[in-house]
């Protein structure tokens, strides 16, 4: 313990300037971090908002400097360092560096997060688990990678070059992936895969750090780090296959479907979309459907779609489960147009004949829970188990008028909530007793919430994009107003079951496709 404190106090004295700057950045972020979510439209508010964004980026950069300086004070690469022939023990050295990070990185950051939560109106003691999860996520995605890279590099410059290399490599891989996945369907988000990837990355980085401290075998540690991306890509691939295979288990087929679907083609309505032509191009196929049958007090959310196509000659194609957009169905009838992506080769095989199409939908049925209705206050207001909201005021000539609401929640997005209120077409002062009449609704939040989502700021802004917010639905159209005192209702939903529902379409013809140069245009 003495040796740990001895090394720690040496580092603290030696790197006082770096520590001071890091603490100053964190303190400044606490002071103006609230402008990240306050959404103030005045000039000062906007400047401070930009400054807050910059400070949010500077915080991890200051960590990068702090971590690198602390690790490189007793660097592990090379054979000419003073400390390797002194009575250091690797466990004490590693512990001293961890203590340094705890005292000068984690502790100030934790305090900063608590202060920011207080500023946003959330008592920190209610969110301790989320705060710790956020620290864990930042450890796995920021602190551990930086520390591991510092242990396998010999100087700040080399670490910076390494980071630059990783960044360029990442962009290159992303560009190649984007090129290769031309119009690919959105894969199902794999919680299992992302958790395993996180665990693999965290364990890999930690292993590289411990290996370096225990053995100082640079190439062994570098090998571990180089193997990580390969392992993570493989894990993602197999996890997505596993999730596909588990879909029928996660969403079992039951007798009572939470909604009924009918095919309602509209020959007069067409839409056109274009994308680059390539042999790997995926053709989007849309189906115009109508849903009914959602029970009172429930909402139904289609999460994924799968299509089975059969031609008159018996030839057959079945898609994988593909993620769906943001459809949320309440009681009543509504039209929607789900789509699947079909490989060009399959399209070419089936496009000339009427087809039998069987669509499976993986749906989540959610039940309404807490309902909070309040008269829209002019000031900030708190919605229990949702967050803190405030009116969004517009520029002149709407100055002082509420044109929307901003809500924030602590550490992660709020539970899935249906927000409804009424718009006024006229300025609120001119309303004179008559109630506003245009309905404005929005879905906010998620059914599958984590205790925390990773972030430098512990306050998560949830955009409440109320429908019908403009009188004319055109770009730059005139805004409607939310008047103080108008009732606004927040209805929270919780998932109660996951199941499948399906529909069969006879005589479906694939849309026409036109290839011009290297552009594909599709009309359906």
């Amino acid at each position, binding site marked *: 313990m*003495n*040796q740990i404190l001895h090394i720690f106090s040496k580092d603290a004295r*030696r790197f006082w300037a770096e520590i001071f700057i890091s603490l100053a950045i964190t303190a400044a972020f606490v002071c103006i971090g609230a402008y990240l979510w306050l959404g103030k439209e005045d000039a000062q508010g906007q400047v401070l908002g930009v400054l807050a964004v910059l400070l949010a980026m500077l915080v991890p950069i200051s960590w990068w400097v702090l971590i690198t300086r602390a690790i490189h*004070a007793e660097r592990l690469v*090379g054979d*000419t360092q*003073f400390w390797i*022939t002194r*009575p250091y023990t*690797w466990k004490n050295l590693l512990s001293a560096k961890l203590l340094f990070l705890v005292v000068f990185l984690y502790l100030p950051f934790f305090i900063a997060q608590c202060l920011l939560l207080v500023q946003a109106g959330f008592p920190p003691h209610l969110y301790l688990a989320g705060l710790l999860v956020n620290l864990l996520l930042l450890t796995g995605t920021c602190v551990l990678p930086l520390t591991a890279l510092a242990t396998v590099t010999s100087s700040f410059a080399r670490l910076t070059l390494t980071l630059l290399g990783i960044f360029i490599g990442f962009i290159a891989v992303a560009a190649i992936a984007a090129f290769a996945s031309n119009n690919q369907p959105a894969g199902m988000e794999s919680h299992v895969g992302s958790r395993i990837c996180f665990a693999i990355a965290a364990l890999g980085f930690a292993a590289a750090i411990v290996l370096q401290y225990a053995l100082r075998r640079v190439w062994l540690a570098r090998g571990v780090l180089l193997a990580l991306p390969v392992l993570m890509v493989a894990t993602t691939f197999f996890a997505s296959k596993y999730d596909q295979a588990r879909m029928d288990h996660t969403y079992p087929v039951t007798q009572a479907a939470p909604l009924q679907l009918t095919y309602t083609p509209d020959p007069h309505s067409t839409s056109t979309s274009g994308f680059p032509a390539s042999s790997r191009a995926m053709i989007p196929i849309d189906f115009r459907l109508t849903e009914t049958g959602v029970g009172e007090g429930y909402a139904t959310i289609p999460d994924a779609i799968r299509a089975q196509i059969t031609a008159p000659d018996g030839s057959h194609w079945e898609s994988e489960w593909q993620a769906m957009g943001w459809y949320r169905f309440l009681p009543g009838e509504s039209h929607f147009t789900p789509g699947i992506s079909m490989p060009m080769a399959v399209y070419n095989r089936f496009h000339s004949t009427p087809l039998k199409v069987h669509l499976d939908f993986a749906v989540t049925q959610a039940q309404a829970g807490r309902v909070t209705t309040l008269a829209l206050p002019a000031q900030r207001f708190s919605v229990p188990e949702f967050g803190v909201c405030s009116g969004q005021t517009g520029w002149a000539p709407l100055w002082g008028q509420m044109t929307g609401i901003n809500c924030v929640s602590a550490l992660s997005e709020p539970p899935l909530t249906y927000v409804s209120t009424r718009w006024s077409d006229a300025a609120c002062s001119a309303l004179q007793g008559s109630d506003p009449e245009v309905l404005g609704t929005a879905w906010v939040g998620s059914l599958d919430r984590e205790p925390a989502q990773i972030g430098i700021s512990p306050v998560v802004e949830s955009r409440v994009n109320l429908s019908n917010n403009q009188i004319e639905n055109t770009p730059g159209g005139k805004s409607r107003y939310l008047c103080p005192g108008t009732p606004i209702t927040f209805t929270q939903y919780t998932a109660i079951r996951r199941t499948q529902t399906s529909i069969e379409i006879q005589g479906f013809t694939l849309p026409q496709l036109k290839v011009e140069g290297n552009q594909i245009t599709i009309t359906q």
Partner: protein
Amino acid sequence: MNPTICTQSLSKRFGSTVAVDNVDLAVPEGAIYALVGPNGAGKTTLIKLFMNILRPTAGGAQVLGMDAGQLTGACFNRIGYVSENLELPDGMTVGGMLDYFRGFYPNWDRALEQQLVRQFDLPLKRKLKHLSRGMRMKASFASSLAYRPSLIVLDEPFSGLDPLVRDELIEGLIERAPETTIFLSSHDLAEIESFSSHVGYLQQGRLLFSEEMTALSNRFRDVTITLSSPSPLPANLPAAWLEPQTADCVLRFVQSDFDEGSSPRELGRRFPSARDIAFEPMTLRQIFLAIAKSGRGAQGSAAHQGTAREKEA
């Protein structure tokens, strides 16, 4: 008595380059052992191997009775290491560095530290990065001597230093000699000769010989034979005769297996017409130059004899 440093078939390869080749070395306790050899001979690598800074490709080593591979942490309470390439904590002052190191050593001698600071005239408040090379080396010496280590390992400690600093360091070192074993590598032969008790010669990673300094000095002689008439270089000269050359009536060579009793008689028999046979003692520098200049076969012979004598001792 157990040797302080002992290596068995110690080898180190870097790719296809053999830096240390099958080295068997024994440094007796209390010795001042000088490892010499040309640049690139593998001296620093050999030191790093038995200091557990590098891992051997083959073979093993023991230091102070411990396996060199296990040399970590508290083991270094008994070992002082100074190298010309050692990176010091440059951001610290000399005083700060001594304060810092003091915390690691239970047997740190504060009085000795102060004595060394005075002796080396160390500027305690100056940062290490602002010190001259000589001053840095002195600071390094002071921080490695103040805890009275049982073994002091010095890698090219005098390289590039002015004579005054060198003398100060040697003086400081000799004062510690009675209580410690000193192992140093150098190609500064003149300084080594004045205080070393043992010497080893490393060339191209191979230890050509390792023996006591007096034994080495005793077995090397610069031999000059004056013949009665001009004569070519005789054939089949012994391998232990290094750099043989003739000029008119004079034959010169370096004898690496000189024996005071038998060598004059043997040469007298071999050169019956010799008018004079002179044996001149050689300095360490002359010996190493002769070894370095001579062919590989002759060196092998020198090495062989050195090892043989050491075994006898």
